[in-house]
């Protein structure tokens, strides 16, 4: 049963700089929320925080919920939040099939059943028969698809996309985008994507948040179409953006 992803006053900062102001947003199952911003604006850092792998040196506050379960206190591996990275990160010592088996949830038991599930997934993705192959022998597009399949077979409750189309060339990018959004929709989980490509955001057909820096150096969040910024500074803590309420203004 899919449940929404809820960020509650999530803020991330470096000692010298605020990256993400207190951000509160809800992503519904089946929805794709796009977070845009220039490199260094902290959008990938936010995904690391949500995934539970925030590197040392960052300070983060706020809570993350999936439905009624708070996950921000859990270790990365128990959050059931899947991240698709720029690189496919297929494990080079395993075959394609073994990579998928590594991802496949243990709810599928028995060698035969697991193998069947994996070849079904490959076939559905147009990759039939690739299970015994070494990932290194696959094309870039095939590798990307396998990486997504591996992630989905783990049955995540939330999907995070960390500029997953960035390293693909234009033709592949279009193709893989459709593949990802189709599969994400089929999985019916909340999806949060970060990108700096406007075309990605358009293809996602969802709300868009843009991260930027205001003139006084504090972080701001606004929507791509210009209107939706409700970040404000409070009197007590000047310089700190206190809350963001994201309102969907699309027609």
């Amino acid at each position, binding site marked *: 049963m899919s449940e929404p992803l809820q960020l509650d006053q999530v803020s991330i900062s470096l000692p010298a700089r605020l990256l993400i102001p207190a951000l509160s947003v809800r992503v519904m199952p089946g929805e794709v929320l796009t977070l845009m911003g220039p490199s260094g604006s902290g959008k990938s850092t936010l995904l690391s925080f949500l995934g539970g792998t925030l590197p040392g040196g960052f300070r983060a506050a706020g809570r993350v919920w999936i439905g009624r379960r708070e996950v921000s206190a859990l270790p*990365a591996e128990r959050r059931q939040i899947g991240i698709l990275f720029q690189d496919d*990160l297929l494990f080079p010592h395993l075959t394609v099939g073994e990579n998928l088996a*590594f*991802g496949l949830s*243990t709810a599928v038991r028995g060698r035969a059943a*697991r193998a069947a599930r994996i070849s079904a997934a490959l076939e559905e993705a147009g990759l039939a028969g690739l299970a015994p192959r070494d990932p290194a022998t696959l094309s870039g597009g095939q590798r990307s698809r396998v990486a997504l399949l591996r992630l989905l077979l783990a049955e995540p409750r939330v999907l995070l996309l960390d500029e997953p189309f960035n390293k693909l060339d234009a033709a592949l990018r279009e193709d893989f985008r459709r593949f990802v959004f189709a599969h994400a929709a089929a999985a019916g989980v909340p999806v949060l994507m970060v990108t700096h490509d406007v075309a990605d955001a358009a293809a996602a057909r969802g709300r868009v948040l843009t991260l930027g820096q205001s003139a006084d150096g504090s972080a701001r969040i606004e929507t791509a179409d210009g209107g939706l910024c409700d970040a404000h500074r409070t009197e007590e803590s000047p310089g700190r953006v206190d809350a963001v309420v994201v309102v969907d203004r699309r027609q």
Partner: protein
Amino acid sequence: MRAPMLTTTAPSSSPRMRPTFWLRQAPRITMLLFLVPIVAGLAGTVLPAFGWLPALGGRELTFAPWLRLAEEPGVRWAIGLTLATGWTATIISVLLVLGLCARWHGRKPGRIGRAVFAPILAAPHAAMAIGVGFLIAPSGWLVRWVSPWLTGWHQPPDLATVQDPYGLALTLGLLVKEVPYLLLMTLTALGQLPVARQLEAAAALGYGRTAAWLKIILPQLYPQIRLPIYAVLAYALSVVDMALILGPSNPPTLSVLALRWFTAPDVRMYFPAAAAALLQLVIVLGSIAVWRTAEKIIARLGRRWIARGRRRSRLEPLAGLAAVLVSGLGLLGAGSLLVLAVWSFTARWRFPHILPSHWSAFAWREQVGTILWPLKTTLGVAVAASALAVVLVLGCLEYEQQRGPAPKSRSLWLLYVPLLVPQIAFLFGVQVLLTVSHLDGSLLAVVWSHLLFVLPYVFLSLADPWRSLDSRYARTALCLGASPGRVFLRIKLPLLLRSVLVAAAVGLAVSIDQYLPTLFAGAGRVVTLTTEAVTLASGGGRRVTGIFALLQALVPLIAYGSALGVSGRAGRRRVLAGVSA
């Protein structure tokens, strides 16, 4: 001390040219100096093992030496002891290192551990064995720490904690030395893998750290540390100096038995000694083959285990235990070096006092005369072997770069030959060869025999930095009209000074570690700190033994320190010169 392993960075594409005559000879001379003694030495062991040694009247091939070996009382125990200590030490070392890395690699305590293990790595095996003996003996430091308040002992207990018949002390001594070595190799190999990102990807699929490490990192790491593991296995199975100091004496391990017969007054014992040495070789090669088979089986089972997709590992607490045990070994190693120093300055130290009641430098003053000569010999041999090795290795690497890259997976195995073949199995043959050419007992022979072990380590520690130097520096200099020789001297050498000096220090440490080659090639007449320390360990007083072992451990450490210090100063000077220019 063993050096960082050769890794798999491809030689950067360098401008090709025809190397000069002398440079072309470098690889040939190296191979000749390197392989001739080993091949000839093995032949010189195999033939006498079957009765053929005309110089001693053996002119027919027989199985008599083997029958003599079989008749030796306790020979079965000796073989069992060899296998038990070697395998136990290696398996535990590998498990501890992997467990530790699974738990701590990339985290802060791991980085602290690196610094703690450096002196233990640099210390020769003999010195470490003596120190471990001083620690764990019935009257040793460990017992003193807990006596009498915990144990109630006012006299040293009547226990065989050193030279015990089961070789437990020997196994412990091997662990103290081999775990830091394997750890260094493993950390170096891990530095070449995208560990953090792969663990992150695995965590996103729901895998805990230990499970992800075992299923994802270990399979990629293992091929990189396979040769170092084999070297540890071969070493642990055939070690002589540590076995003399910590191992049982009756019956001893097989290699010590062979040594005893080789050095027996009755020269007819050469034949069974050669048979024992050959058996030692078979044991080592057989063990490596068994290990390799086990690797394959585990890899096959491991693939199925990975495909089952279980997210948690039941080995998690074990990985934590490994961290505790490795810390314990680190403390033991550090304590071993410390207790050497304490004993060397002891005037009066009664059991069960934790520290001496009276200190003095008397033993040092008394020994100055006896220290000086072995110290000079040790340094002379070490400097000569290390310098020769550095020159040869630089020649080979420069030749490789000028001629263009070549497949080199084979030559890596070749380099490992002296580290995988037990010393006792070919050093005797080498000695026969030296005797025939009237070189035995000369310093030249000792330097050459050390070179066999120094060269691989110097190569392994120098090859990677040399090959990964950005080739555009050299190309730029060539474009400016510098000759290849000038580029080598004025560009590459200064840029890689630090690596060259560290490699030289590694060579120095390896040379000082050598006991058996000194004994054989020196025909017992060349006395170094190492041979003295091993001799003193059986029967010498603790103060004098402590002095020799401590010196033996200090020399490599000073060498490393000055290598890093000199290169650091040179680097600063260069920067300063740049600023003022």
